[in-house]
């Protein structure tokens, strides 16, 4: 699974420009499902289960990542940009970025009196161009870029960009690989777009699939680093987290209960998660049409929304075990 995750995090896919990561996932899940389709907004859906039956369960994992978009190119070839999703202002300067065509650049800033005033409009990207004309040969306004960061492993910890949420994508793909041929439910696995800009992709996909139950797989924050920003009783390496609530959803009690029972019955370590700030695709899934009881399986992750996010391989492995066990179970 480590190699799969490394391919996924190295792939390019800021919100709204998910083509590259989508083709990679399509390749990875080839032959693992009965049917694959792409919807109007670019969500990738794979159906597994009996033919001609509507999917009872919808399992989603968003494939987009935070990034940035070029808004202006000045006479000297410097690029101005805006954020795509929750890009952190205070850790950007000095960061390397890369465009889909491979053009790389570095983010720097204008002089500011007070560093707390630093905003995206005071920063710029230097792609080494000597003029506007030279810059335009490589990028154009509207092009998107992502942070650059090499994937690495220390013991069971994996470090890289976009663990949010390629770790979730890896968990879903690995689950699809390990599922038995015969299942009690029809399952739609959806790799969604534009989660980082406001849970946008999951909404239309849920509308069109009309699932009975929904489950989002995403990373969550942890509280196990020195003086964390938020008090939170989730740690790296102590198992996948079963979400109770965040700002977007209160997970359906029946789904939470089923997840806990499944983990207990299969001796899979797990943690309960209450996230004070932040949302997931489950936030829009559970409010689709007449309501869809939904839950979230979270992967603990340190340094979310930086270029070096850290997850634990054992949490991922246990996450797969839990999801496989859940999907073999009868939900209704």
């Amino acid at each position, binding site marked *: 699974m480590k190699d799969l995750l490394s391919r996924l995090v190295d792939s390019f896919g800021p919100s*709204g420009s998910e083509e590259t990561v989508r083709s990679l996932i399509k390749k990875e899940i080839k032959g693992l499902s009965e049917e694959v389709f792409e919807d*109007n*907004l670019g969500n990738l859906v794979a159906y597994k289960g009996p033919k001609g039956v509507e999917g009872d369960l919808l399992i989603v994992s968003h494939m987009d990542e935070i990034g940035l978009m070029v808004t202006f190119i000045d006479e000297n070839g410097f690029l101005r940009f*805006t954020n795509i999703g929750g890009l952190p202002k205070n850790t950007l300067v000095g960061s390397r970025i890369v465009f889909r065509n491979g053009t790389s650049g570095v983010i720097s800033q204008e002089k500011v009196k007070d560093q707390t005033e630093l905003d995206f409009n005071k920063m710029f990207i230097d792609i080494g161009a000597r003029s506007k004309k030279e810059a335009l040969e490589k990028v154009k306004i509207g092009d998107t870029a992502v942070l650059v960061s090499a994937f690495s492993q220390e013991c069971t910890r994996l470090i890289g960009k976009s663990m949010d949420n390629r770790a979730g994508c890896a968990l879903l793909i690995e689950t699809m690989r390990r599922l038995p041929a015969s299942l009690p439910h029809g399952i739609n696995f959806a790799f969604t777009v534009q989660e980082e800009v406001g849970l*946008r992709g999951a*909404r239309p996909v849920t509308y069109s699939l009309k699932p009975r139950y929904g489950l989002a797989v995403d990373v969550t924050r942890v509280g196990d680093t020195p003086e964390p920003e938020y008090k939170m009783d989730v740690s790296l390496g102590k198992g996948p987290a079963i979400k109770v609530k965040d700002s977007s959803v209160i997970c359906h009690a029946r789904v939470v209960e089923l997840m806990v029972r499944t983990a207990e019955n299969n001796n899979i370590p797990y943690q309960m998660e209450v996230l004070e700030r932040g949302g997931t695709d489950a936030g829009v899934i559970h409010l689709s049409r007449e309501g869809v009881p939904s839950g979230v399986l979270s992967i603990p992750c340190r340094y979310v929304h930086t270029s070096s996010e850290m997850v634990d391989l054992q949490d991922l492995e246990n996450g797969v075990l839990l999801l496989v066990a859940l999907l073999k179970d009868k939900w209704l």
Partner: protein
Amino acid sequence: MLAAHMDEVGLMVASIEKSGHLKIYPVGGVDERLLLSTSVQVGPDNVPGVIGAKAVHLQKKEERGKAVEFDKLFIDIGAKDKEDAEKATKVGDYVSFLAEGQALQDDLFSGKALDNRAGCAALLEILKKDCPLSFTGVFTVQEEVGLRGAKVAAYRVNPRIALVIETTTAADLPDIKEHDHATSLGKGPAFTLRDDSVITHPQILERLVTVTENDEIPFQFRRFPGSFTDAGAISLSRDGIMSGVISTPCRYLHSPSSLLNLRDWKNLIKVVDGFLNSIVEKGL
């Protein structure tokens, strides 16, 4: 589906004071700094009034040099007392700016509610043209209070593609650097890359650019990433709708004196027309 919202920002009568003055609250994003001393009309009978506040020499030291906040502003319709005011208006009446449109030099035009009557006027012009593509034109309500009308309209129309015709902020002003201009007057209609509600679908953006290049129409990208448009609600309707936004740049948005360049507006109509025709020719 082509959509232009027809509502404008305004005010509402919140209460009528004993003195006959009307307390107000905003409907949509109204900047209270613009309100003092403006002329308004109140309610269905267009009762004239002016917006007032405590005179400067009565202000406390800490109040001076600051914008007067909503709860300290009131409308004076010249009523003697509450009873007199109640003959002319009631709580819940809408209040709009009283400002006549006026032509300035060089194709510039100023008036209230150009956001988004400019879009409505453009959509009307497009509806008048002979277009080989069948489309639905929607004049939406309640955009300024949260993209409400577009949401239900998109559900009903259920289009394959949506283009929202808007008016967007221009900040080509003294002391603002070019990369912060958002848009500039006279440089053509503006294409949204992304705002807080939508990322323009790449195929729509690409097609808009191709149309302008083929027909040699000037255009610009909107460089300001913020704010919300009907496209946000439309794009997430039902199973998802490819959406984009094209705007006439406009200075002093949401004020009684917003200002746009009619050449940008005419070019916007050309681009939308070209966009529709290109879909007939080669799909999207």
